[in-house]
């Protein structure tokens, strides 16, 4: 693994089939069995509902590319969503709310990165610990209650449109463009590939892998902050379990999207398609009136199958 060269080119041809096939299969399946699935209203609903997940899954892709993991993302989103609600309620300012969410999210991201990079704690345990902390802080700041009565300026973000396109979708597209540019067209992006594939090379090149790792986790935390704003706007309140399990949907999207957990090889467009696959799956199961518990279980099965296939590919 150490000898692997720095891979800076995405390798779409090998990967499009897997995740695109899953997406097409799911769409075909639900078009056939779920009445109303193919309506414009429902499809745009799927897109809008996938925006929060997009904002978590893209940074999760970068983190997994460094052979890391962030289990705390859902809990951090809960906390930032509460911060947005509390601060915007107190100051009547959406921007101050967003600022608070970003700050808290980035702080958790830096803490995750510090635990993983500097202290060398395995990522899944370090972020499990911070998951507990974020969960605890969410309960403490909200006292276990919903935060209601948030200003219109926050709520409107979820329902407003820009040139006829819902603002959450615009935000998700901008995020995707930013991540694409960052990963494939900047030196930092190349370093991210190297963090997973060849950390030694970074050190020989005179760079600090630790600082880069912290930056990657910090991006994840900050994105959880922005997604927290969307979550608060969507629920029109802050709730101490708002983000429960979202990190799992994000991991599912990344895994289905063909990013490897073992080789520092990632593909952002795959993650985007993976997000849509998870969104379509949940929406379709919802339309045929299966409860959310079944949706959770089926996303779990999706992840295990995707990881199994990933394992097969890596051995082939």
């Amino acid at each position, binding site marked *: 693994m150490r000898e692997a060269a720095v891979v800076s080119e995405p390798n779409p041809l090998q990967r499009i089939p897997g995740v695109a096939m899953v997406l097409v299969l799911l769409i075909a399946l639900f078009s056939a069995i779920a009445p109303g699935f193919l309506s414009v209203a429902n499809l745009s609903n799927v897109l809008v509902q996938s925006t929060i997940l997009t904002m978590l899954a893209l940074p999760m892709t970068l983190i997994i590319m460094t052979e890391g993991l962030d289990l705390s993302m859902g809990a951090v989103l809960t906390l930032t969503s509460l911060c947005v609600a509390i601060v915007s309620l107190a100051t009547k300012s959406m921007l101050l709310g967003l600022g608070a969410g970003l700050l808290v999210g980035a702080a958790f991201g830096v803490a995750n990165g510090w635990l993983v990079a500097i202290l060398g704690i395995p990522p899944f*345990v370090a972020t499990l610990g911070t998951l*507990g902390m974020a969960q*605890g802080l969410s309960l403490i700041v909200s006292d276990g209650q919903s935060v209601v009565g948030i200003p219109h300026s926050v709520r409107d973000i979820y329902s407003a449109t820009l040139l006829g396109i819902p603002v959450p979708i615009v935000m998700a597209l901008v995020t995707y463009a930013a991540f694409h540019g960052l990963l494939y067209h900047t030196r930092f992006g190349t370093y991210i590939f190297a963090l997973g594939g060849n950390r030694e090379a970074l050190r020989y090149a005179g760079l600090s892998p630790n600082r880069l790792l912290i930056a990657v986790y910090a991006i994840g935390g900050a994105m959880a902050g922005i997604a927290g704003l969307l979550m608060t706007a969507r629920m029109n309140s802050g709730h101490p379990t708002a983000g429960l399990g979202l990190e799992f949907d994000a991991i599912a999207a990344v895994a289905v999207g063909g990013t490897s957990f073992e080789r520092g090889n990632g593909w952002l467009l795959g993650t985007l398609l993976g997000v849509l696959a998870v969104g379509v799956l949940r929406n379709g199961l919802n339309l045929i009136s299966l409860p959310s518990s079944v949706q959770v*279980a*089926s996303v*779990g099965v999706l992840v*295990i199958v995707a*990881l199994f296939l990933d394992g097969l590919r890596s051995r082939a």
Partner: protein
Amino acid sequence: MTDITKGAIVPPRSFLSQDAIQVFYRLLAALLICAVLAVLSDSFLSLGNILNVLRQASLTFFIASGLTLVVLTAGLDLSVGANVALSACIAGTVIHKTGSPALGILTGLACGGIVGLLNGIMVTALRIPSFIATYGMLWVLNGLTYWYMAGETLHGFPAGFRQIGSGYLFGLPIPVYLLLVFLGIGTLFAQRTIWGQEIYAIGANPVAARLSGIPVARRLLLVYAVSGTMAGLASIIFLSRLNSAEADIGESLTLPAIAAVLIGGTSLFGGVGTVFGTFIGALILTLVLNGMNLLSVNANWQPLVTGVIVILAVWLDMKTRRRAQ
């Protein structure tokens, strides 16, 4: 990538070995916490509270003891809490339907064991990294449990069955006797049987273990199945203690169990640790949470404190081992 000589020198696991010294330090820490709590709170040293701590620690220990074996092989089982919830709900249904506690207990243990076996299959046959495989399993189990229970609560179990979790024998809670039994079995199994030693060997160096003829896949299957079965046992104790079962009872169990294992000195990197250490770990965690309770700290602080403890425990472990090398 893996050096086959890594971890080749395994010190003899006799008394006053490195393990024993580590356990001794942790016992001291537990005593220190007890002393502090006795000073800070009048009710800490009351018999009722001490029995309560022991009973609470035994619940954490049941889940954590099986998990210890998994962590000894450098794996992790994140599905234990969700497994407890599913097993408790299924066992509860069986007791309600058949009226037979024995059948319910068997079903709970079997359900836990089967889930553990499935984890083992994912890790060995499908070669999915354990933390992500069992994390997927966590959500599959959560979904199944919520779907199965559909928001219902099971409650009201036979009096005899409820004795398991809430009864006393010679003045001690029955779970404490079970704790002693499983502490004994676990310690003997890990330290004094060939299979137990093979589990240490797999954790210390999987390549060397395979090359020296240890059936690695079979031992791993066993370890995950044991972890699942212990979660099944914990589900029975929970069921009889709470006298009710709900889909969400497992959500706050996984992190404390992992904390107990790590505080107890079992290394996340495999090959180092003892079941007795995990018992002390469960005791320390319970003492801290109990102390917070006695000092009337809001229960909302518990996940935060548990999270900090998990990270501190791993960090201390890595620090001491770096110094030892």
